[in-house]
């Protein structure tokens, strides 16, 4: 039911992408998102798309799943593209009442659509090949310098780990409570929006009560296992950069140089 959302899900595997250090993956994701938005001409754009497709191929996750991950954002893509269509500058191609369509407008809307799609795909490569624990771990380590400024980095990471751990548990419980309330004659499927939201109250209250009980138990369990904050804590899995990571970094540096040169030399797709 709620659990078949593809976006942000992890698919275990042993591919190059799975083996890459999560910190590098996270940085490269941001790097490619920046690049796709900086690409000004068709060549750099196409090249960046190709690199991303290569990343998808390397992840060994079925293409079907990537397409599925795009579904929820198709509306946003279409909406932004159509909106951009009307705001082109330059010579009008044709005019219909107050609507003016220009060549720039069309190009612009295509580019924006492609950019959003690529953005989602790149992020999917990251989330599909990185377990939530690895991801929080990567975030914790990348943000570690902020701890010097008294930002509670470890606490945030711990919160995220626990939240992620309890998502399936609480989902399961929600379904159980809903079934229990339905068995008592609760009606959750009919009526307007307000009525449906109201029907959720008998589900949410027991859920909250039990979440607090779980929190108390968990706190006891954590303290019993000697948890005393991030100080003096070690990690079983130490993140270390391997061959895959250095290769990826090297390739991306080379790519960045080529990208910059091509982006300057080749005239932009949209001439204002």
């Amino acid at each position, binding site marked *: 039911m709620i659990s078949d959302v593809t976006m942000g899900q992890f698919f*275990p595997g042993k591919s190059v992408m799975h083996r890459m250090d999560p910190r590098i993956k996270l940085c490269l994701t941001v790097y490619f998102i920046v690049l796709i938005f900086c690409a000004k001409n068709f060549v750099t754009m196409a090249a960046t798309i190709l690199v991303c497709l290569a990343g998808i191929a390397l992840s060994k996750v079925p293409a079907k799943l990537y397409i599925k991950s795009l579904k929820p954002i198709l509306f946003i893509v279409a909406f932004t593209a159509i909106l951009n269509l009307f705001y082109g500058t330059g010579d009008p191609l044709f005019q219909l009442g107050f609507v003016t369509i220009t060549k720039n407008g069309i190009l612009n809307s295509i580019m924006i659509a492609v950019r959003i799609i690529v953005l989602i795909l790149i992020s999917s490569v990251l989330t599909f090949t990185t*377990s*939530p*624990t690895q991801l929080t771990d990567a975030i914790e380590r990348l943000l570690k310098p902020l701890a010097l400024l008294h930002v509670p980095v470890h606490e945030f990471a711990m919160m995220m*780990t*626990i939240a*992620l*751990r309890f998502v*399936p*548990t609480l989902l*399961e419980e929600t379904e159980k409570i809903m079934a229990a309330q339905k068995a008592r004659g609760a009606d959750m499927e009919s009526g307007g929006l307000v009525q449906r939201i109201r029907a959720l109250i008998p589900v949410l209250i027991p859920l909250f009560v039990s979440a607090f*009980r*779980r929190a108390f*138990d*968990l706190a*006891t*369990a*954590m*303290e*019993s*296992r*000697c*948890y*005393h904050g991030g100080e*003096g*804590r*070690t*990690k*079983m*899995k*130490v993140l270390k950069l391997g061959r895959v990571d250095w290769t990826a970094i090297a390739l991306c540096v080379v790519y960045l140089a080529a990208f910059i040169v091509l982006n300057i030399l080749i005239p932009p797709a949209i001439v204002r």
Partner: protein
Amino acid sequence: MAFIECRDLHFSYGEETGEVLHGVNLDIERGEFVALLGHNGCGKSTMAKLFNGMLVPTSGTVRVDGIDTAVEDTQLDVRRRVGLVQQNPDNQLVAGIVEEDVAFGPENLGVEPGEIRRRVDAALKAVNMYEYREHAPHKLSGGQKQRIAIAGVIAMETQCIVLDEPTAMLDPRGRQEVMDTITYLNREKGITIVLITHYMDEAVKAGRVVVMDDGQILTDGDPRTVFAQVELLKRHHLDVPQATELIYRLNAAGCTIKGMPLDEQECVAAIASYCGKG
């Protein structure tokens, strides 16, 4: 000196709830398997939390391996010696992957990574869950989750595990798995076990049974001696193992069966020899 020493324990959760424990004295030796029995509200769960310093007695002392649990500075030393496993298997696992959860304790203790790996593997093998090390806990059965919780405790190399009704929420198969694990750890690894339960059939597996009632110790001894006091236990609304109960009732009805069987096999043997005699 006993491993866990409780001297004249009094405990109350607050003014309005009144005192839960009224002067408990209890010694638990290294390597013992103790079952702590009693019905709800008799103070046995409170005892569990007192053993590892999660709660501190209102008066009296608890010493673990000579360390007073009430001293703030040495609390980590107490908890690395005495681990706690709670009732609800869902609420005590911290990480989203089995092996990372087991690693949680040693990570908190600042053990170096290679050593954590070794301990985690050893702990998972000891509870027979090694092949599940990369699974997500929410996909495991209750009995498996409870064994992961036990592994999480032994990965800290604790010398004693206190289990607070670890089988209460499990199905018969899960209960059996957990009981087998506990018995194995006690016999083969020499880990001291304090099992809090209200299943009598689990209690008979222990080397020593302590029965609590209304914040005090009612009786204490090996299972055979304790369950022989059927009258006393009944007076306090406590059960005895089914086999013992059967023989007790048969004798009450006029039979003269000898011995005090604790499990089915002994019960069958006792009845068979009685019938054989005619």
